[in-house]
């Protein structure tokens, strides 16, 4: 099922069955989940047992499946007894299962950022840095199906990993990843005046704020996330010279 549907037919409704190639989120416990790509010969092993992907094919999302193992186990109750649930992937679940290459944002901050940036379907936004793509995935959902997220990271390999994740999650048409040092160089000129929103998660965001101002359309929104109050202070000071309504 598509993590972010680009088409009404792609939604994970009750009619949809798990098929080969689908990404499912295997829910073991509330604090233990992982993303798995379903393949005919695939096997998942965890503390609850051995699970054959083949037993999952044709089932509903949200199904409870039991471990095989033991003789002739067919995912039936009598084998193993351990079970997991197979969930349809969403940006929220992705945030909980993705591999951390950097510190990530979690749903509390993500939800506030999406609301503060006033995102609706069709918006264009710029993000720096991409990091592990946790927020980026939620941003893509907010602007789908026709909006765009242009995201930048100064680290080659992490940009590649993010791009791979987005590809696997069917988000490539929504998200473009580029390698660029936004603090040093600002955003690319070709996006001038094209952005509805800009998001910054940088160690020295004040260096990028003037450029963000140039990228934004009239009444567009800039949001900068900083873990430390000193960063917030410097960022606010810079914002006051090129923005109205600065709130922290």
């Amino acid at each position, binding site marked *: 099922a598509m993590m972010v549907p680009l088409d009404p037919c792609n939604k994970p409704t*009750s009619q949809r069955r798990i098929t080969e190639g689908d990404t499912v989120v295997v829910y073991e416990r*509330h604090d233990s989940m992982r993303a798995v790509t379903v393949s005919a010969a695939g096997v998942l092993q965890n503390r609850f047992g051995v699970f054959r992907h083949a037993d999952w094919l044709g089932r509903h999302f949200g199904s409870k499946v039991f471990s095989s193992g033991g003789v002739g186990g067919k995912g039936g109750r009598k084998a193993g007894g351990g079970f997991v649930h197979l969930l349809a992937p969403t940006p*929220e679940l992705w945030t909980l299962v993705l591999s951390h290459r950097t510190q990530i944002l979690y*749903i509390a901050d993500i939800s506030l950022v999406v609301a503060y940036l006033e995102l609706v379907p069709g918006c264009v936004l710029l993000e720096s840095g991409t990091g592990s793509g946790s927020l980026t995935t939620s941003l893509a959902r907010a602007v789908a199906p026709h909006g765009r997220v242009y995201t930048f990271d100064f680290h080659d390999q992490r940009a590649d990993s993010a791009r791979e994740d987005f590809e696997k999650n069917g988000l490539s048409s929504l998200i473009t990843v580029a390698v660029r040092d936004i603090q040093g160089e600002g955003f690319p000129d070709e996006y001038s005046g094209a952005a509805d929103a800009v998001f910054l998660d940088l160690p020295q965001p004040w260096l990028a704020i003037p450029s963000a101002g140039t990228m934004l*359309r009239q009444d567009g929104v800039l949001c900068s996330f900083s873990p430390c109050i000193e960063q917030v202070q410097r960022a606010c000071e810079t914002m006051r010279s090129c923005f109205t*309504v600065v709130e922290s």
Partner: protein
Amino acid sequence: APPPPQTPTPVIPREAWEGCSVLLDINDGDRLAFFRLTPGRTVKIGDKSCSLQPLLGRPFGSLFRVGPSGLVPCAANDKPRGGGGADGQAQDETRDNRSLVDNNTAQTLSSEDIEAMKREGASGDAIVEALIANSSTFGNKTVFSQEKYKLKKQKKYAPKVLLRRPSSRSICETYFKKYPARIGFMRVDALSLLLSMANVGAYSDVLAVDMVGGLVVGSVAERLGGTGYVCSTYLGSAPSSIDIIRMYNLSSDMTSRIFQAPLGDLCSLQSAGDAPSVLSGSIQRDLVEPAAVPDESLQSSLAKPINTEVSDGNAQSMTVQPINMEVPEPATDDHLNQGDISMSDCKGSNGNSIAPKAPRAGKAPSPERMKYWGEHGFSSLIVAAPDHEVESVVADLLPLLSYSAPFAIYHQYLQPLATCMHSLQASKMAIGLQITEPWLREYQVLPSRTHPHMQMNAFGGYILSGIRIHRPDP
């Protein structure tokens, strides 16, 4: 050089148009009010009644000052906010208030003098400068105190009006500040969490119980962007008011996605194959009387036929207001009503405004649509009924969700959610159950003056979230 990106056509209108809903921010958040830009509408600033006409066609985010004949566009304040080495000044700041005596003798200009200046056409800024010049204590104040003094005088004699575009965020914040009871004290961070937890996005089919004036339905409709659907269901025989959606400037595409259906109709969608929930599916229940009755008066006649299948035996004495775009907001609400909200003189332009002929929000869904939802399920559920017990509502609605669909339930108080969570755990209809208490604190951030705002609201409500699962046949 890479070719210029093919960016999509902008979707957010950036200029105010005739008939649109705007949020006026007077004096930097001191006063917030919604208005509709219809001919003849005015706003009262100080003792002056100003026409809103100058706002038409202006970009959102524009600033206005009050000139002799009304609102005039002006440039943003070149605020002397700690510019020019405020940090240095702070370190050298040796002044304090030890010699200040508040005996009302510091200012030598009298109110008659000020009136005379106004009559002679002196600008607000000139009056402020004169007040500063005639204050014997001004020079002894700290630089921060001087700034504060100047700003205070400016707000009184040279008020500024900021034209803002209403959005989920600004609408929620404004209501939370002014009429929090109407939105069940749902703070913006709680609303944002609901939308994310319920995975609201394009093509979603969202099932909602909105007893917060339409704040949830409006925000969901915004996030759907003219795709998908939001079905707002209600207990009792008549829907509760969702009038807040009129603040959102929803396009006709978006409003056509908003449906309302009574709970009884939806419950009959439940397909036979579903495992019954542990709790009774009966619709008879004891509804807690809403603690905060909205002051909208009960309309004497309903605008359209209400579904007469009264599913709830307890006909509630809840004050409800049917969705009728033509009826103006009742006069008790002075701010919102000020030249505002009446849809009858709204004109269509840019296809953006809600023309009176456009499909009304909140109509009943077609049988085909109901059938679709019965077979496919809703993609998520949001419940915002902050004065009611939610346990049985959720038990009734959860079976209507698609398998693996998320749900998010807001409540002002913790206990009803704890009860609901317990039931859901026992019913084995959901996993990933958790109760979240969102927390948001706003700060003033200025050089050497960074601190939380002096007033903070401690309660933004709680959210119970989880995912509906497919129960295997026993």
